[in-house]
C-alpha cells in the first residue's frame, strides 16, 4: 500500500493541486526527483487519476442549485437504467448519484434563477420515467467542498 512519503505527497497535492513536483518534494522533505518518481508511480497504480478544473457555475450566471432526492418505482425491472439514461439528457444536471438507503437517486440541478428552475423542473424533471417520489433541497451556502481524503 502507501508509505508515509506517498501520503505526505498526496496530502500536499490535495491541499494545493498546482504545486510542481519540486515544491511538493520540498514540502514533503524529499528531492524533486524523488517526488516526481513517487507521483509517477502513484499514477501508474491508478491511485492518482488526474486533475480536473473546477467551474463556478454562479460566475456563469447559474445562481440556483438544487439537490433532487428521488425514489424510483422499482416494480419496473429497467427503472434505474431508463431513469438514468433520460436524466443524462438534461443539460442542467451536473451530478447523478445512486444510493442504498431511503433515497434511490440524487440529481444536482443548476438553473439561472427560480423561473428557469421551475421551467426545467416542470418540463424535464417531472418527465423523467419511473419516479415514485421526489424531494428537493435547495442549496443556500456551500461551507466546505474539497473532496479531499483524510490521508
Amino acid at each position, binding site marked *: 500500500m502507501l508509505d508515509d512519503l506517498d501520503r505526505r505527497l498526496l496530502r500536499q497535492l490535495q491541499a494545493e*493541486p498546482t504545486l510542481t513536483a519540486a515544491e511538493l518534494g520540498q514540502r514533503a522533505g524529499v528531492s524533486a526527483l524523488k517526488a516526481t518518481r513517487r507521483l509517477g508511480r502513484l499514477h501508474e497504480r491508478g491511485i492518482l487519476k488526474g486533475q480536473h478544473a473546477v467551474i463556478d457555475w454562479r460566475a456563469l450566471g447559474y445562481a440556483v442549485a438544487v439537490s433532487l432526492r428521488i425514489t424510483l418505482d422499482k416494480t419496473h425491472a429497467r427503472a434505474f437504467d431508463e431513469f438514468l439514461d433520460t436524466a443524462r439528457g438534461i443539460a442542467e444536471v451536473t451530478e447523478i448519484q*445512486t444510493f442504498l438507503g431511503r433515497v434511490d437517486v440524487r440529481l444536482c440541478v443548476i438553473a439561472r434563477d427560480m423561473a428557469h428552475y421551475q421551467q426545467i423542473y416542470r418540463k424535464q424533471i417531472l418527465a423523467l420515467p419511473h419516479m415514485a417520489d421526489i424531494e428537493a433541497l435547495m442549496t443556500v451556502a456551500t461551507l466546505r467542498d474539497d473532496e479531499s481524503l483524510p490521508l
Partner: protein
Amino acid sequence: MIDLDDIDRAILRALVRDATQSAVALSGRIGLSQPATWRRVKRLRDTGILVGQRVSLDAAKLGFGVTVFLGIKLATKGRVSLDDFERAVTAIPEVQLVEHVLGLYDYRLRVVARDLADFERVLRRRVMTLPGVGDVEANVLLSEERRPGPL
C-alpha cells in the same frame, strides 16, 4: 457575467477533463494559437469562472471504500447554534462536503470512511455529537457520475 462562445466552452470542457494538460496540447485541441488560448484561459480565471483545480484520487484504492450522504436536521435553531454546528462539522476530517440547504433537512454532508464499521464510528463519535444535531438520514453511495453541465 460574461458571455461565453463555443471556443470558451470547449476550453472549459477540456480543462474539466484534464486540468494538467500543457498549453500546447490545449491549444492544439481547440485549434487556436497558444497566446490566444492563454488569453482565453486567463479571462476565464479572472472572471472567476475557473476557480482552480482538484486532484482526483481513487478512494477505494486508498482504502476508503464507503461514501455516505447525510441529511441533517438541527434540533435547536438560532444563530448561535448554526455557528457552533458549522464550525464543528467543517472540522471533521472525514466530511468532504457541507451544504446549508432549504427543505426537509438543514444540512447536506458527504462523508468518506474506510468501511461501514468505520462509518459507524464517524457517525456516532463525530456526527451525532455535533452541537444541536437532530434527525440524521444516511444514504450509502453506490455509483456516481459527474456531467459536463450546460456548456
